[in-house]
């Protein structure tokens, strides 16, 4: 199987991220948002997607925590910050900074 290049992964990620944002924009269901097919395909891109997701988070908060936890096996978010997308964003960007990914 031909391995995707970083540029190819970034292009696929961009397309999937746009599709995900568009098709889940009206939903309040976190379940629906993170189980959307495009979101799942982003997780399927594997670890190369992590810096791409962090770059998205650096622009604005969004529901990327589920994907990041699935991809990294880590969760830097405090339980007391449940539902606080701004704090979830900050926690993951701090995590990414310590890993040299941001």
């Amino acid at each position, binding site marked *: 199987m031909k391995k995707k290049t970083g540029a190819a992964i970034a292009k696929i990620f961009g397309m999937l991220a746009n599709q995900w944002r568009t098709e*889940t924009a*009206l939903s309040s269901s*976190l379940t629906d948002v993170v189980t959307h097919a495009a979101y799942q395909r982003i997780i399927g891109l594997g670890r190369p997607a992590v810096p791409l997701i962090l770059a998205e988070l650096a622009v604005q908060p969004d529901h990327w925590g589920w994907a990041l936890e699935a991809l990294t096996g880590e969760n830097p978010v405090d339980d007391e910050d*449940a539902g*606080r*997308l701004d704090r979830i964003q900050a926690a993951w960007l701090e995590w990414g900074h310590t890993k040299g990914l941001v």
Partner: protein
Amino acid sequence: MLEAMFPGLAVGNYAITSAKTPTYNCIAWAAGDLTRWWWPVRSPLAYWPAGVPCEVTLDAFIAAFATLGYAPCNVGGALESGVEKVALYADRLGTPTHAARQLPTGAWTSKLGRLEDIRHTPEGLDGDQYGVVACVLRRDRPAAPIAP
């Protein structure tokens, strides 16, 4: 785009009343919380009131709003003096999808997912996206806070 997703908005009065933001969803907005995403999942990615069943059912959503003093209303969405109302929407399977809050004018306000807040008529959001109003909740309007 909104009128394409919600045909009822095309014929009723509606207005966009905020910028787009993913910070809070419709449940949070109806609950008066602009800081969190409310949804019944066992995850720090969403908020759900402590002690309320973590399930996507009308009963659980009614219980969630009960923590704020709301209870099922017998007179529907009619405007009542001194009363705040929240409408819970559900799809054809009865699964909760959306919540709207009544304004003092009698119009309703909703946060549309990760998009804007809008002011709309009660029937404006009926349709395939959110279903229809399944339950209306009420509480006495809280007394205004004492100015410092």
